[in-house]
C-alpha cells in the first residue's frame, strides 16, 4: 500500500475522489480528440485542470442534492455521478444521450443524479440553483443546492439578485465560484473590482477563498457549507482558485496574447490537482486507477460513436411537456 502521511479523509474516499478526477481528465482528453478529429459537432469547453473543484464539492453532496452547471460542465456532470457513455452520446448528438442529443456539450443535464443542467448563458443558472434551494426549504427537505459558475459570471447582475434573496430567506444554496483567472480571453483582474468574496459578504453570506487545486481543501470547505445549508443557516460562497489548462473552448489554441505559456506550464507542473492527490494516495494507486478509467473512457467513446442518431421525428418532441 502506497505510503502517505496525514491523509485528511478516509483512504476509500480519497481514492474515490482521485478516480473521479481521473475520469474527468480522461473524459475531457477524449472529448478534445473527438473534436480535433471532426467526430464531434459544435464546440466544447474543457474542464482539464479544474477537476478538484467539481470533485471536492460533489463529494460533499448526496445524490438528491442538486447542482447547476456551466458551459464548462462535463466535470460537474461526472463528479455528480453521470454515466460517461451517456455523456459521450450527448456530446455526439446521439439519441441515447442524456438529453436525447438535443442539448449537447453545453446543456448536459442528469436529472436522476441531481444535475439540473449545464447552462450556456454565463451566470444563467444562478436563479435556477437558488430556486432549487427555495424548493428544498419550502418542501421541507434537507437537500442543498450548488450553483457552479465561473468568475466571468461575477459580471452578471442576476447573481447578486439571487444571493440577496438566498441570504434573506436562508436558502440552502452554495455558490461555488470557479475562478480560473480568465473570462474567456480576458484576465479576470482586468474586469473585476474589489475582492470577490466581499461581494457575497455584502449580503451577509459567509465566503471563503479555497485552493481549488486541493481536492481535500475544497471538500472540507464544501462540507462546512453543506452542513450550514442543511442546518437551515442559509447560503455560503466559495471562491475556488483554479486554472483552465486548455483554452476557453477547444478551438482556442493560440493563447499567448492573453496568457503566457510559462504561466500555463507552472500551474500544470506545480499545482496539478491529480499530482497533488497522488502525493497523498500514492502514484501506484493513481496509475492503477488511471488505467482503469482510461479503459472505461475508451469503451464509452467507442459505444457513443456507434450509437444511433435520433430519428428525424424527434425534432418536434419535447417542445412542450
Amino acid at each position, binding site marked *: 500500500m502506497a505510503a502517505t502521511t496525514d491523509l485528511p479523509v478516509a483512504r476509500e474516499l480519497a481514492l474515490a475522489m482521485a478516480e473521479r478526477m481521473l475520469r474527468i481528465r480522461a473524459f475531457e482528453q477524449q472529448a478534445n480528440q473527438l473534436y480535433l478529429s471532426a467526430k464531434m459537432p459544435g464546440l466544447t469547453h474543457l474542464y482539464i485542470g479544474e477537476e478538484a473543484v467539481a470533485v471536492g464539492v460533489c463529494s460533499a453532496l448526496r445524490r438528491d442534492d*442538486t447542482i*447547476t452547471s456551466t458551459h464548462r460542465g462535463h466535470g460537474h456532470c461526472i463528479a455528480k455521478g453521470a454515466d460517461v457513455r451517456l455523456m459521450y452520446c450527448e456530446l455526439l448528438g446521439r439519441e441515447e*444521450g*442524456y*438529453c*436525447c*442529443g*438535443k*442539448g449537447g456539450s453545453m*446543456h448536459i*443535464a442528469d*436529472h436522476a443524479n441531481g444535475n*439540473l*443542467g449545464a*447552462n450556456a*448563458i454565463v451566470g*444563467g*443558472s*444562478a*436563479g*435556477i*440553483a*437558488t*430556486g*432549487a*434551494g*427555495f*424548493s*428544498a426549504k*419550502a*418542501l421541507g427537505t434537507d437537500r442543498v*443546492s450548488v450553483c457552479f459558475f465561473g468568475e466571468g459570471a461575477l459580471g452578471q*447582475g*442576476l447573481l447578486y*439578485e*439571487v444571493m*440577496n*434573496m438566498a441570504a*434573506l430567506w436562508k436558502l440552502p444554496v452554495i455558490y461555488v465560484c470557479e475562478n480560473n483567472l480568465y473570462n474567456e480571453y480576458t484576465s479576470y483582474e482586468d474586469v473585476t473590482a474589489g475582492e470577490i468574496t466581499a461581494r457575497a459578504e455584502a449580503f451577509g453570506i459567509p465566503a471563503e477563498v479555497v485552493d481549488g487545486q486541493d481536492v481535500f481543501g475544497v471538500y472540507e470547505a464544501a462540507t462546512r457549507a453543506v452542513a450550514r445549508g442543511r442546518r437551515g443557516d442559509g447560503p455560503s460562497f466559495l471562491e475556488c482558485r483554479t486554472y483552465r489548462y486548455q483554452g476557453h473552448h477547444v478551438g482556442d489554441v493560440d493563447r499567448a496574447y492573453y496568457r503566457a505559456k510559462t504561466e500555463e506550464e507552472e500551474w500544470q507542473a506545480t499545482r496539478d490537482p491529480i499530482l497533488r492527490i497522488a502525493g497523498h494516495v500514492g502514484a501506484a494507486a493513481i496509475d492503477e486507477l488511471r488505467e482503469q478509467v482510461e479503459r472505461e473512457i475508451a469503451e464509452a467513446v467507442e459505444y457513443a460513436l456507434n450509437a444511433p442518431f435520433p430519428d428525424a421525428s424527434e425534432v418536434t*418532441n*419535447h*417542445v*412542450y*411537456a
Partner: protein
Amino acid sequence: MSTLEVPVGTRELTLSQAVNEAIREEMRRDPTVFVIGEDVAEAGTPFKVLAGLVDEFGTARVIDTPISEPGFTGIGLGAAITGMRPIVDIMFGDFLTLIMDQVVNQAAKIHYMSGGALKAPLTVRTTLGATRRSAAQHSQSLHAWVAHVPGLKVALPATPYDAKGLYKAAIRDDNPTILFEDKMMFTQKGPVPEDEYVIPFGVADVKRAGEDVTLIATSSMVYVALDAAKALEDEGVSAEVVDPRTLVPLDRETLVASAAKTGRVIVIDEGHQSYGASAELAAAVSEGAFWSLDAPVRRLGAMDVPVPFSPPLEDQTVPTPERVVATALELVGKKRS
C-alpha cells in the same frame, strides 16, 4: 354559448376577482403552488388583484421580493423544475424585458434541451394595454415577444370567466405559461360559475355570432370589437367576434372557420401592428381561408410609436370601436360595390 351570457349558477365577478379566485383555489388544491413577486403579499399588487391571498396562505406562499425581476423569475423557475408550481408576478408587462433570459433562454428551453427530463410548470402573470396615462414604459403590450418563442404558452384572457378558467389550466400545466391581463379590465365584470371549471389552452371562443365580417380580437380588444359589432348592427352589418384566448397554442380552426363563413376578417390586437400578434393571426386566416375570403385580411394594432403620455396623443395609438366600424364598412362596401 358565449361566455358573456349569465347562466344559472353563476355570479358576477370582476376580472380581478376571477384571477384572485383561480389562484386561491389552486393554492388550496395544491400545496406546491405559491406566488412570488413585488408587493404581492400585504399590498396584493398595486392593482389589488392578489388582495387577501397572504391572509389565507401566509408569507411563505405569497412572497414579497426585492425589485429583482430576473432574480425572482429565476428562483421561480428553479423551484418549478424541482417540484413546485410557482406563479411569478411581473407587475407590468414592460418588465418582461428584464426577465427575457430567464423566460426565453431558460424556461422555454429546459424541457427540450434536457430531452424531456426536466419540466418547468411556471406561471407568469403580467399585464398589457395602454390608455392608462402611464407613458412609454408602463403601457406596452409585449405578448408577441413571448408568443414567438417555442416552449412557452401564452394566454390573453378577456373576460372574468376566461381568466379564471385559463389561470387554472396554466397553473396545472407542466409548461411555462404567460398570462397577460389588460390593466384597464381589472374592474370589468362578467359571469363566473360557482362550480369548478378549467378552460384548456388552444380553444378560441366566439364571443358574438355574426355573418358578414369576422372580428378576431384579443384581450381588451374583445370589448372594442363587441362595441363595434353593436354599432355595425345599426348599419345593417352582422359582425362575428372571435377571441383566440390563447396565442400559443392557437386555435387556428375556429378562426379559419369563422373567416370562411363571413369572408371578411379584421384582426384587432393591442400590440404594435408591425411584426405583431395581429400579423400571425391574419396569416393564419389568410392561409387557412384564402379561397373563401372576399377581401384582404385587415389588421388594427397599436400604432408603431412608443406610447405617449399626453391623453390626446395616447388615445390615437390604440384601436377603437370607431376605427373597427370604419374598417368593417370599408370591407363590406367593397363587396357591395
